[in-house]
Structures are given as structure tokens and as C-alpha cells.
């Protein structure tokens, strides 16, 4: 197991360097630069343009800028935002808990509903339940997030008035952030009703962000279960008179879960992309919305560090999934 972990960790380093290059190049390949965008319709004289490019250090050769950025990262300095003038890492740490909180809720929603749905659909294969479920999953998978979010707001907040429209908690409540997780901070604050307010604000964004992973998890669980249910050992278990519930829960599910866990791990990466749209619609102060703003402003330091930090998180999650995978299936860690 230690060797397995070591191998996995060793692979991270080249991936990390690769990502620094991609993140660095990505924002510079985009046409336009921050100075021109700041100047806007007024324009900027060539002298002032040179001055500003020099001040930001963008007049230096591209490889010098890259190594400067890389050296900074290894010293824990991710640069300073051109627009807010704050250290990028500070903004990231402030905003990231909001994204994690939302993503955790969404993935929990997707797994808690998706796995049972997939199992039932597999067991009742071909019935109306299975067909309806898989049909719905396909619709859920194809639904544009932006559209779904607005639709939910209009229906549940606008017409029915059941949920708040957007934000993380009612503006009535005010307390300093301790952990950055609104559900935890609202409990710590001791203010009456704060926790339920935070929960009620989570409902619609969770559904919006969780719908695509839910569809994927349900479909993956169903097909994995179908495969396993056809295996000899399941037939044997049934033949020896084991109750169906136990056959499915104990023998089939455990083996079917392996590809499902991989899928869930991959969905976390996909979710970071979904978070960008979900956060924008629901005024959710997370890193997704922050990155969109930064790309619009060509805020090079934020984009390159933000991409890198998000990639690091996705890599860590993948590593954890790999380890879990190894724990569940011993054959993998011995390969």
C-alpha cells in the first residue's frame, strides 16, 4: 500500500508542472490584456501602456515571467490580483469553503439519490420504473445548468415562495466567518434560525449543481449492478436461498460500487465546472464566480493561480479515490 501511494504521489509532480504551464499559457493565449481592458473606450497612450505593462512585469520575456511565477508558487506566493490588489491565495481561501460546501452537498445529493435509484432500476430492469428513471436521468444529464437554475428559482422562489432566491443566508443574520462553511458558522453563531436559513439557501443550488452528477451516478450504478447481477456468484447466492435483499446489498452492491466510486471521483472534477455557472446564478460567493470575473478582466495572476489551485484540489480528490479504490479492490494496489 505504501509503495502504491508513493507511485501515485510521484505521478503528481509532473502533472503539477504541466498544469502550471497550461494555466500560465491559457490566460496569455486569450486575446487582449489587462491594461487595454482597464483603459476601456478611452484608450491608452503607447507610453502609458508601456509604463503599466512594465509595472505589472508583463514586458519581460515570457519565460522569465513563467519562472518567476513558478518560483513564487514554491515559496507559497501565488501573486496578487491586478484588480483587487489582494493576494490571490487570500481570496482563494476566503471563497473556497463556499465552493466546497456547495459541492459536498451536491455530491451527497447525487450519491444519496443516484445509488438507490440505480439499484432499483437495475433490479426492476425493463419495468416502467426503470424506463422512467433512465429517461429522466437522460433529461437531467442534458439540461443546461444555467437554465435549470433559473427555472428552479422562478418556480420555487418566485411562484411558490418556498425557498430563498439566492445568497448563502438571509441578510438578517450577520456573524463573522470562522470556518467559512455557512452551515457550521451559523451553528457556531448561536443565532436563532441562522442554521435553517443557511440550509434553506442550500436547497436550490444543491439541486442545480447535483442534477448532472445524479444522472451520471444513477446510470452508472444501474449498468454496474446489471453486470454484477448476471454473475455466477450472484446466481449461486440466490440458489442457496439467500434473501434477495441480502444478495443485492451484500454481494452485488459491493462489487458494483467500484466503478461507481470512480464515477463519483470524476464527477468532482466535472462539478468544479458546474460550480462556475451555479455560483453565478445563485450569487454564491465561491471560486467559480471569482474565476469567471478574473478571466473577463484578464487578471493573469488570479486566473493562473486559481486554475492551479483548483487543479490541485481535483488531483487530491483523484488521489483519494485511487486510494479508496485500492482499499476496496486489492488487485489494483498490487498492479
Amino acid at each position, binding site marked *: 500500500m505504501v509503495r502504491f501511494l508513493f507511485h501515485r504521489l510521484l505521478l503528481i509532480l509532473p502533472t503539477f508542472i504541466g498544469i502550471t504551464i497550461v494555466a500560465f499559457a491559457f490566460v496569455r493565449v*486569450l*486575446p*487582449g490584456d489587462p491594461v*487595454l*481592458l*482597464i*483603459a*476601456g*473606450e*478611452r*484608450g*491608452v497612450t503607447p507610453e*502609458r501602456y508601456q509604463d*503599466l505593462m512594465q*509595472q*505589472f512585469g508583463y514586458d519581460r520575456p515570457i519565460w522569465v515571467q513563467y519562472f518567476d511565477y513558478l518560483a513564487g508558487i514554491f515559496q507559497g506566493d501565488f501573486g*496578487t490580483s*491586478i*484588480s*483587487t*490588489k*489582494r493576494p490571490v491565495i487570500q*481570496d482563494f481561501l*476566503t*471563497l473556497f469553503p463556499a465552493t466546497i460546501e456547495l459541492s459536498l452537498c451536491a455530491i451527497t445529493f447525487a450519491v444519496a439519490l443516484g445509488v438507490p435509484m440505480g439499484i432499483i432500476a437495475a433490479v426492476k430492469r425493463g419495468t416502467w420504473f426503470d424506463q422512467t428513471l433512465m429517461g429522466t436521468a437522460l433529461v437531467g444529464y442534458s439540461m443546461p445548468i444555467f437554465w435549470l437554475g*433559473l427555472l428552479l*428559482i*422562478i418556480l420555487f*422562489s*418566485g411562484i411558490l*415562495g*418556498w*425557498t*430563498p*432566491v*439566492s*445568497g*448563502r443566508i*438571509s*441578510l*438578517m*443574520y*450577520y456573524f463573522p*466567518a470562522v470556518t467559512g462553511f455557512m452551515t457550521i458558522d451559523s451553528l457556531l453563531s448561536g443565532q*436563532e*434560525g*441562522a442554521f*435553517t*436559513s443557511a*440550509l*434553506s439557501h442550500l436547497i436550490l443550488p444543491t439541486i442545480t449543481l447535483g442534477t448532472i452528477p445524479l444522472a451520471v451516478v444513477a446510470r452508472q450504478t444501474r449498468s454496474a449492478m446489471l453486470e454484477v447481477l448476471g454473475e455466477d456468484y450472484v446466481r449461486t447466492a440466490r440458489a442457496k436461498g439467500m434473501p434477495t435483499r441480502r444478495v443485492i446489498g451484500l454481494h452485488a452492491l459491493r462489487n458494483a460500487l467500484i466503478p461507481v466510486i470512480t464515477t463519483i471521483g470524476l464527477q468532482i472534477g466535472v462539478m468544479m465546472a458546474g460550480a462556475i455557472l451555479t455560483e*453565478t*446564478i445563485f*450569487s454564491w*460567493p*465561491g471560486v467559480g*464566480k*471569482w474565476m469567471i*470575473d478574473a478571466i473577463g478582466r*484578464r487578471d493573469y495572476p488570479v486566473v493562473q493561480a486559481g486554475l492551479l489551485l483548483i487543479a490541485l484540489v481535483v488531483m487530491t480528490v483523484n488521489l483519494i479515490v485511487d486510494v479508496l479504490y485500492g482499499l476496496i479492490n486489492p488487485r489494483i494496489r498490487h498492479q
Partner: protein
Amino acid sequence: MTFKKSLLMATAALALTAGAAQAKTLVYCSEGSPEGFDPAPYTSGTTFDASSRAIYNRLVQFTPGTTQTEPGLAESWEVSEDGTEYTFHLREGVQFHSTDYFTPTRDFNADDVLFSFERQWQEDHPWHSYSTGITWEYFNSMSMGDLIESIEKVDDYTVKFTLTRPEAPFIANMGMDFASILSAEYAAQLEESGNLDALNQQPIGTGPFQFVAYQQDANIRYAANQDYWEDVPAIDDLIFAITVDPAVRAQRLQAGECQIMPYPNPADLEMLQSDENINVMEQEGLNVGYLAYNTQQEPFDQPEVRKALNMAIDKEAIIEAVFQGSGSIAKNPIPPSMWGYNDDIEDDPYDPEAARQMLEDAGVTDLSMSVWAMPVSRPYNPDARRMAELIQADFAEVGVDVEIVSMEWAEYLAQSTALDRDGAVLLGWTGDNGDPDNFLAVLLGCDAVGNANRAQWCNEDFEALIQEAKTINDQDERAALYEEAQVIFKEEAPWATIAHSVVFMPMLNSVEGYVMDPKGGHSFEDVDIAE
């Protein structure tokens, strides 16, 4: 707990809290996050709303709802005969905000004025680059660095600015956001503690509201300044609830999560206007959308050709299709809400027949040209692509073949300034300080050729008028000169002036006293909430 139960409880808790809170709180669903709280390094209206307009004052201010200047932190001022010396007499007894991070020991005085400007002006000032990558974009783009010769403290309550040349718009510049007055005493405290960045994060001003807290990208909280030198605001608390998506802002307003919002979607306007709980205010924006010919390129160097093309454009159809009613036809290069607007000017009639004839008379046949369409939506032009297509069709009517060109925004801004640029450019302008000079000199002056003057148009008579207007301090005299300049502009037609946008501001009926700012800012010191 069941889902329904928890929802019920949440609602009950909200109702309880709302009942318990006696304080009047105004929630404004703002459109974006401020970049910082020191307004001077920034140029965006979103940042100014959250900083300069709520927290700070300036020496000069604008009378609410107008572009006219009035005394602010300066009670009065005198201008020397030659127009180069401005002496400001400061208001006494004005206090800076007392917060948990700063308690002032003295009132506002000349040192604060010196600090606020010198930091932007003098490169060796300790606060000139107090944060990584800080630049003073507005100060520079208004050429204040070249304009100011010296700033002098005559006594504690008198400050004298000496300029390198007469510049009448200087007074309006002193009302702009970058000219906000910060506390020198607070800066000294920060310098001592080595925490310079706090100036941009925990602001101290003299304005109607004092800063309480900013939860990044989520909300900003302010409390009314109980010692405000003007009328203390009627509301106790002001909250900016940052809500980027306009459709979501409208939903929040309807659900009562906020009481007032800016920039509604044109598509949502009908829904908002038909809601009996909502009042939608509207006003013409301080902007203009135009099509700038390259007057140094054949055949657009002939005024007759430009005039003929202007007559071929069906502006009414553009207002209908592109602005969906939220715009008005522009006949002048400055908007009607601005002083100096010449309302006697008649717009070129839409007359394709006459236009075709004029082109023939000018010897222009088989003309092919390009029209540049901006890739972004702006208040003065929400959909440039659509506008370009309509112009393409209009020009085809008079036998002119148009190719539509577009590119990424920053490239567009840069390449459209080139002297040898091919074709006509769709662009626009939103005013900075409500002074006609800010449109006519910035966009059409000879100095701006090759930069913001995208028509590359330099006309001696026009230039003489706007230069003369800079040297006169009497507003009526200046207005007369600008009116004359607009006549020349109309004859020469370097642009096709297309539209001024109409700005909408939806709010709940309970919001009272809100005044729309023609300059596009959002201030709440005069707002009250009906019980």
C-alpha cells in the same frame, strides 16, 4: 425534521428576526463585487457605488439628479483671473467616521486634501504605490498629472491648486470619484502599524455611510453616519447584496429580498413594470452610442459622404430592435441630460433616396466598406452585432456594400484607434463628470486623434471652440460655445450619432426619495423606507 417542517421553521425564524429588527435597513441588489474601497485606483462604477458614493465626500459634489456642481467638503472656491489658480475654502467641523478600527482625533482639514491628491500625483509619495500593482488610472486618464503644477496648504482650511493651463472642467473633475477625500490621520495610523493595504479594505471617509463589513462576493454592510455634516440618512443600515445575474436580481426584488436593484434585463422590464408592488424609475443615461467614420480615409474624408450615409440609417428601427425601447435617438454627440446640449439642432432626416443622390453627387459609386461591431454589450449599445446588421441593410438600400468586422474586446479597443483603420466603428461613451468637455474634447478633440477620437477627426473651428471653453469659468458662456461646437459637428458629421440609452431602476413601492443620477451612480443617502 422533515423538509416541509424545516422550511416552515426557517420562515418563522425570518419573520421573528424581521419583527425584532426596528432599524430601517435598505437592501440594494448590486450587480457585482467592488474591486476595493479606495476609489482612486479604480475606474468601474460598481466599485464607486460601494466606495466613493457611500463612504466618501469630495471638495465639490453634484446636485442630486443633475450634472451641476455644488459645494461639498469645500464650502466655496475662487478662480484666479487667468484661470490657473483654484482656491478652495474647506468646511469646518466635518468628522471622519469612528469605527472599531479607527477613531479620529481631529476634524477634516487641508492635510486630508493634500494627502488625497499627492498620493496620486507624486511618485515619491509613501502612498503612491502602497499596494502591489496599484495605479491611479482615473487621475492619469484625466491628465491631472500634467494639469496640476502645485497643491498648497494656505492654512488649515484653505487649499490652493495651481494649474499649468486654464482648465474649466477642473471643478467637475474635483467632483469625480478619484477625487474622494481620505483621512490623512488614518493613513498615518496604518503606516505606523505597517498595514497599508487596510486603506483599501477598511475604509474611513466623511460620507453618509460608514463601512461595517465586506463578505467577499456576497454582501457589503454599512451603517448610517450619525455625525454626517449634511442630513443624516433616514435609513440606519445599508446592505449591498451582490447579485450578478440580472434575472436573479429581478426575482430577489419581487421576493422582497432586496428593495432596489440596478440594470434590469430588457426582457424582464415588462414583468417588473406590471408588478403592482414595484416602481420602475427611468432616465436617459449620460452616454452616447455612435458610428465613427475614419475621416482620414477616402471617401469618408468628404463630409457630404458621411452626411449621406447618416441619412441612410433608420435610427428608429435600431432603437426598436436593438434597445427594445430602452433607448432614444441621438442627434448630438452629448446626451440631453447634460448642460450645454443644443436642442435646436435638427437631426438628419432618414431619407434613403436623398442619400443615394448625395452619394452620386459626391462621385461615390460601388462603395464597399466595413462596419466594426463590438463584441460586448454596453448600455449605449446592447447588441452591436444586430445594430451592424441593420446598418448593413440600410446602406445596401443606397448601394453601399458593408462587411461586418468584429474581434475580441481589448483588441477592438486597441485596433479601432489606428489612423489607417479601415471602415467605420461602432462604439460609445459614458460620461465621467457631467461636463461637455468630457465628451467633446475627449472623443472629438485634435489631441485625441489616434486614441479615443476614433473618427480621427480634427476640425480647426470645432477645436478652437472647445479649447476656448476650457479657459472660461462661467457656465453659461461655456454652454454657448459648446452649443456652437455641436452645430459644426452636425455639419461635418464625423459620426453617425445613434442612441442614448435609457436607464431603468426598479424598486419596491416602499422606497422613497431615491433620485436617479444622470452620471449612472447609485447613492442612497436621501432614501427612506415607508413603514
